């Protein structure tokens, strides 16, 4: 029940904003409503957290109602540690994004109500997708997130509608994701047919995990699901919609798109692909791990070459999503826990990056790195925040993404040394793309055109502070999140039947050191 309320609050807020008469008395009422709705949602998500039993790996706070009897579809929601982490990411980012987006210059200045309403709609639909435990419900919400994002990019994005402008980016975004979504639809239909052959059709996750299918069917259905998630995540070579969409979006839209909605893709891989098609996932893992490694290196290399800051961040995300997918398909509990934590941390660090660079871009009137220079001198707080967000993106130890990236690599090393070795290159390249960008924009002599870049206002600082605090806090103390994630990950890993590979040396050690006190084994 509480999960339904959690998803319903932002949706109701969006409807309220849509019905609000626009433009009268400034946009203050709309902004106040949007911010308070997102804060209420955040508060309710903390109630969910309080009611959640961290030690349990199964789904909690579940509720199930029949929805479309003929399809076997249910309105079924529930959270495990993985879902809860991502729900919290969504509810934490929503107020940050809304507060940071207050003064966005929109192509249609009367559109503030619609802008904030679509944002709340994204929040509600994403929460719904993370908590759905019915494949049909998940699919509907997964696809439905496209509509608000499409309008956010197309109506409120970049200044032009000419070829290459915002409507082009919006259509490209929609068509790419729709192709993946429709392939998934074919697989969803296939699941129904397979499930109805074994009695009453059901889309419940619990029923689908026990489904018997032929090897070919399982592989085909897996490919259908994976196509949608790989485009959404995005995995090389299906990533090309993301840089265009990010370059034409407002910073707020980019955060919602990359930090929240794209996570549904990687979340779907764990929750749906691995649970429903464990054997097919194992069969496909060499290919997917290869693509993930290519993503890591390719995204990083292209990020280095970008002159548009927003495209640069988009490519760094391609690289980071490569890490997340690599960790998932390495099938070790370490790497999968790392991937889940990475989803959370990447959401925070990318949100901070998009927002702070968005502020820079709107004040300079250009997104080109070459148009900036020496901004540090006139906007010290801004440049400090950019440096911190950038360092978190390159996984500096002490900041949150480092822990997750380390876990992913550590887990991957036990499965595939070449994959992990090449992936490690990504960390080196990350230092390049972030530091070169920082150096060119912030240091050196002040660029005359950048003289108008003023420092952060209190409102912007207020929006960025929670994200920065979490990035630092989780960098030193990630254990609370990992405690919530690990039981759920163990359930998934045991379902795949892979388990962690047996350590190669400890047998010898235990043979020789039976007398050694056991507390030595605890260290990593």
């Amino acid at each position: 029940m509480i999960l339904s309320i959690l998803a319903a609050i932002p949706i109701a807020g969006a409807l309220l904003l849509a019905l609000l008469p626009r433009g009268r008395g400034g946009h203050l009422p709309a902004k106040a409503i949007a911010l308070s709705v997102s804060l209420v949602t955040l508060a309710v998500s903390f109630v969910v957290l309080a009611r959640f039993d961290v030690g349990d790996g199964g789904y909690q706070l579940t509720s199930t109602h029949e929805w479309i009897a003929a399809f076997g579809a249910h309105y079924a929601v529930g959270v495990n540690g993985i879902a809860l982490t991502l729900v919290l990411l969504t509810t934490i980012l929503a107020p940050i994004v809304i507060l940071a987006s207050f003064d966005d210059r929109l192509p249609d200045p009367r559109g503030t109500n619609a802008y904030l309403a679509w944002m709340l709609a994204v929040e509600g639909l994403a929460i719904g997708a993370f908590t759905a435990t019915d494949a049909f419900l998940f699919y509907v919400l997964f696809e439905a997130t496209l509509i608000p994002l499409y309008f956010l990019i197309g109506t409120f994005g970049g200044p032009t509608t000419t070829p290459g402008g915002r409507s082009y980016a919006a259509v490209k975004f929609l068509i790419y994701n729709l192709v993946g979504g429709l392939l998934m639809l074919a697989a969803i239909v296939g699941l129904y047919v397979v499930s109805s052959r074994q009695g009453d059709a059901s889309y419940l996750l619990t029923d689908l995990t026990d489904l018997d299918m032929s090897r070919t069917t399982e592989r085909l259905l897996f490919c259908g699901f994976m196509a949608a998630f790989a485009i959404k995540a995005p995995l090389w070579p299906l990533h090309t919609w993301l840089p265009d969409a990010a370059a034409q979006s407002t910073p707020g839209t980019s955060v919602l798109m990359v930090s929240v909605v794209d996570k549904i893709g990687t979340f779907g891989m764990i929750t749906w692909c691995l649970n429903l098609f464990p054997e097919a996932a194992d069969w496909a893992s060499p290919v997917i791990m290869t693509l993930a490694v290519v993503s890591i290196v390719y995204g990083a290399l292209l990020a280095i070459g970008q002159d548009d800051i927003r495209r640069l961040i988009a490519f760094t995300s391609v690289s980071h999503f490569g890490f997340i997918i690599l960790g998932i398909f390495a099938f070790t509990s370490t790497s999968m826990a790392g991937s889940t934590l990475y989803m959370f941390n990447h959401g925070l660090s990318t949100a901070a990056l998009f927002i702070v660079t968005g502020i820079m871009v709107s004040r300079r009137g250009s997104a080109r790195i070459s148009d900036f220079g020496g901004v540090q001198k006139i906007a010290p707080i801004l440049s400090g925040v950019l440096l911190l967000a950038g360092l978190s993106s390159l996984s500096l130890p002490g900041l949150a993404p480092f822990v997750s990236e380390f876990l992913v690599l550590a887990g991957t090393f036990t499965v595939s040394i070449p994959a992990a070795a090449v992936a490690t290159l990504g960390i080196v390249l990350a230092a390049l793309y972030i530091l070169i960008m920082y150096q060119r924009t912030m240091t050196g002599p002040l660029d005359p055109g950048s003289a108008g870049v003023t420092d952060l206002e209190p409102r912007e600082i207020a929006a960025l502070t929670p994200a920065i605090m979490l990035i630092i806090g989780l960098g030193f103390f990630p254990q609370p999140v990992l405690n919530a994630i690990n039981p759920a990950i163990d359930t998934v890993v045991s379902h795949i039947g892979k388990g962690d590979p047996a350590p190669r040396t400890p047998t010898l050690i235990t043979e020789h050191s039976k007398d050694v006190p056991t507390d030595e084994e605890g260290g990593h």
Partner: protein
Amino acid sequence: MITTFISAELPPIDAPTIEYSLLGPLFIVTGVAVLGVLVEAFWPRASRFVVQAVLAVVGIVAALADTVWVYTDLDRIDAPLQARGQVAGEGALTVDGPGVFTWGILLVFGLMSMLLFAERRLEGGLSAFTGRAADAPGSSAEAQAVQLRVEHTEVFPLALFALVGMMLFATSNDLLTMFVALEVLSLPLYLLCALARRRRLLSQEAALKYFLLGAFSSVFFLYGIALAYGYSGSFELSAIDTAVTNRTGGENMLLASIALMAVGLLFKIGAAPFHTWTPDVYQGAPTPVTAFMAAGTKAAAFLALLRVFYVGFGGSQWDWRPTIVAIAIITMFLGAVVSISQTDVKRMLAYSSIAHAGFLLVGFVGVYAGVAGSDRITSVSSVLFYLAVYGLSSIGAFAVVTLVRDSGGETTHLSKWAGLGRTSPLLAGSFAIFMLSFAGIPLTGGFIGKWGVFSAAYAGGFWWLVVIGVMISALAAYFYVRVIVLMFFTDPVGDGPTVAVPSVLTTVVIVVAVVGTVGLGIIPGPVLDLAQHAGAFVR
């Protein structure tokens, strides 16, 4: 004394048994149509339009109520497959679950169309139909007709006759009845197409094209009927089924009969390569008539197609399925690709209707009848649901088209629609919802409909056709999305379009269509169950 003598000489003649209560909706609509003709003859001209409109609406509502009653009262049949209904009218008709469901949606479509027919605020107090069809376009007589404010009020009885034809077509059990129904539904539509108030030449051209091609296809259909009779010795579908299953006659005659009847039926649903009439007729006909045709004809003809091929030719499904698969792919692909290059809204919607005929054929070709005792989506139920959603969204979309106008009447050129979302967000939003439903985006009825037909095809063994279907859906989504881009993301050109303020009639139609489209996407249960419990065809 004399009577006894005659009865002794002649064999006894039984009066035919007609199940009047079962056929009530047909009688009501026919009766009201005939009454409309009498009104046309005797009622004073000044108030005739209103009387005709009220009569048509009341008649359809009464028939709809009777249809609900008939549906709940149908006999249940449990074996071999779950079905309901019976053969009626001495074997001429089959009043069964799918047939009565189709009556229901046809009457709803008819009702919504009548409301659009009756809209008179958009043309300054005159209807969307020409005042005097006999006048040459652009002549002084025509101008005089406008000045005298004469109107063709026959449009209401004509539409009702077409409606009866559609209802008969969907429930014919006998190929001759089916042919008569085909003509009853077509002839009034040919006339209605020619009656547009604006762009008269285009309208007359559309009517002539529709008439010539329609007559041509009817002849194909008739020849097919003749060959089916030659093969099986009967016009009744169940007798033809027996002959086909037992393979009593020559194979060639059967195949020729199937092919010729398919041509006639595929023409009516607008499937490629028999689709060429669709864009011209949709564009030229008065928009309310286009709405009526797009929703009604497609539903009725699809039911007839299903009935002929499932009941009559079901025994030779392995002969016709490969061809229909090919036609489905061509139809989807052609409809989706060609509509991308359209610049006229009505032509674009016409090609979209062709693409949807293709998606419906995907569900049709699955020939999935379900399993006894289970509650699965079958080919019949998925097609019924799709037709309901598609018809509702289509009528809504055409209703929106009637409102976007300039001095020359409706502005159907797409470039004039640029920026509509800025000036009238509600209207553009409604149209966007219809487009999203056509594209099959979740939370709209179109998505559930697509899910249904794809699942029927998948269950029938055509998983690869489903994959082709979803890829073409993505292609088709491109042009629906293009319209949304134009309305919402593009700046208006010049003065932009003016949106006429309609009377309550058109408003009601658009609101009902929006609510229905979204409602069927979120809570499809009730209508889906209705389609589901309609069961199989009764033979």
